[in-house]
């Protein structure tokens, strides 16, 4: 575990939110961690890569923030409940969670299929989210407080020719988050679905074809933090994607079948 600064205690005059980010070591997760730490949030960061996670925590803690590192592979579903209990105890509570773990393994062409990749994406992008958000939803429902943020994707809005497995995993996540929202809103818990378009992260290389309107993950992180503060339900980032996806969602199937994106 990274050497955390000594004090992260909340008092009425130094209130601290406590957050958990799963999939925090790179890209959007790391950008969110940096920004939240800068706002005085105590963070527990979960990611597979110990090295990257430790480096990120060191960086945050050196800058006066508070971050604890928990190396973990989200596909180790059985380990989640015990790890979650440990995290909540060491963090001193839990106010919100961001599920940002996600992979994109394209089959490599419109005429290629790859079940192994598809399974891996569903395991990380969807089942991993269910493994973490199930006990968290139970806890937040019991506490009648809390906020759940799921990083889905515009890719979940429509099944397209390029990457059926990714589309399916993100569509599943979007629907799962919607269902959680419908369960939890009545208990005072906010569930935010984030649908990023293209972002300039390592995942961009997996994209098939052109990548218009790609934004820095820092900008997406800012959009997300603003939406969290306003307790929104669903956002696109960059916001332009709301209109693009509105059009794409309404392209009739007979036409969509003939398109090659």
């Amino acid at each position: 575990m990274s050497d955390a600064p000594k004090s992260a205690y909340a008092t009425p005059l130094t209130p601290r939110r406590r957050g958990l980010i799963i999939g925090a070591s790179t890209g959007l997760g790391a950008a969110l961690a940096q920004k939240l730490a800068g706002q005085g949030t105590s963070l527990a960061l979960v990611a597979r890569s110990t090295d990257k996670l430790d480096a990120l925590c060191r960086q945050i803690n050196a800058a006066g923030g508070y971050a604890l590192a928990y190396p973990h592979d989200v596909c180790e579903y059985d380990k989640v409940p015990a790890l979650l209990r440990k995290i909540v105890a060491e963090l001193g509570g839990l106010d919100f969670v961001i599920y940002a773990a996600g992979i994109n393994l394209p089959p490599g062409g419109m005429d290629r299929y790859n079940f192994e990749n598809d399974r891996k994406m569903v395991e990380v992008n969807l089942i991993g989210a269910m493994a973490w958000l199930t006990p968290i939803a139970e806890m937040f429902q019991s506490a009648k407080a809390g906020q759940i943020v799921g990083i889905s994707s515009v890719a979940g809005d429509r099944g397209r020719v390029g990457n059926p497995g990714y589309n399916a995993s993100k569509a599943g996540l979007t629907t799962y988050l919607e269902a959680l929202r419908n369960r939890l809103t009545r208990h005072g818990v906010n569930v935010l679905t984030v649908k990023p378009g293209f972002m300039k992260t390592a995942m961009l290389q997996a994209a098939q074809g052109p990548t218009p309107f790609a934004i820095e993950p820092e900008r997406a992180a800012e959009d997300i933090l603003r939406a969290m503060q306003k307790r929104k339900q669903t956002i696109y980032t960059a916001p332009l994607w709301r209109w693009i996806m509105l059009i794409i969602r309404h392209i009739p199937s007979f036409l969509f079948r003939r398109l090659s994106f």
Partner: protein
Amino acid sequence: MNLTHHFTQLENFGHSLKASCYRIKIEKPDDIYEAFQLAKKSGLTVTARGTGISYNDVSLNGGGIVLDMSGMNRILEWDPASGVVRCEAGVTLEDLWKRVEPDGWWPPVVSGTMKTTLGGCLGANIHGKNNFRVGTIGEHVTEFTAMLPTGALVTCSPQKNADLFYAMISGLGMLGVFTTITLKMKRIHSGLIAVDAWPVPNLHRHLSDLLEHAPHYDYIVGWLDTLAKGTSLGRGQIHAANNLKEGEDPNARETMKLSYQHLPDRLFGVMPKSLLHYFMNPFLNNAGVWLINTAKYLASLRRHTFRESHAEFHFLLDYVPDWERSFGRGGLIQYQSFLPKETAEDAWREMIQLSHRRGLPSYLGVTKRHRPDNFLLTHAVDGFSLAMDFKVTDGNRARLRDLLQEFDRIVLNAGGRFYFAKNSETSAETARAFLGEETIAKFKKLKQRCDPNNLLESDLYRRIFKDIGL
């Protein structure tokens, strides 16, 4: 037990702190034992909580287990002949006085609210408006039993396990969990109390009147107009009261009835008081409080004497239900300092002036007269206390924090002490400075003996006591 379904968001009294904890309802001592076992198995810590109305984090345990003691609320034995009562730790002062008052008794020490539990009262070792005369509540406890994290059920009194007796009372729940408490009530001969009220024009008169008049009364308390400046700084009103002697109340039989002690739930017989806090909110700003304080002071200029019920006199904080909500979304904090009688005036003058200069005046000031006691983590001095309420807003947090740090410095330099049931911003360094190394070493030894695995931890414990080596 699935802890997940016990996850609860708890708050402090002032609604200025939140902590998510696993709350477990306790109904008998065995439940405490089981909770300790569960905590050990799950790698969690434990904190006891009564009604949860401390101003700070003493009964919060973020990410850990909180024992909800409010279900252990049986009065086990009450002897109206001797005035000795044995209760479970979750019994509130309200439960207690309502039981003993009709028999001609009153709790020897009460807080400004009747909602506190006896376990919490002992943990903080509360004082009342009679501290200068009868000491803290601990001085009226003849015996208690407590469950230690080791699983042992110990019985303590000033004679038996005396070291634990004097440390667990004032020990903020860090050594064990109170299960039963035996204490001696005070005889009363009327349901009324005779109150004298008079104005004091400045801080000097305020404190000298507290000092000189205290010996003639059973209770004494001052209201301090925290917004008055210049030669009027520290002005206010003193309320001093005496219990009536036998025969002084011709209607004693009537006034001792419980119905007579009832706090009215309507203002002027019309407006439900549960709504009152909404109407107070618009006045809780610098201008509004100045207006109210000035009016209150002018109204107090007439010296007067009256009789009121014990409940009305003692439980001012219960007079307006949910009054703390009138402070708005950021809630409130209280800063209470205890100063020796020799240094109090100068220190408080400096503090009040500083709060004015910073534009961060307190909205309520309350003074009391105190005497020292023998409990290990004592907050008392031979002098006075001044409690100041501050409204917390998103815009004033950082400035208020700076102000309170300077207050701490002024109080420490003046030989003062602090009270953990109230102050929420006390740092580990400040705590070390006023407690002293000898006290800390003694407490540390007891902590190791009673709780070798550090199972009992509250947010307060982690924030202050862990850092000073306990």
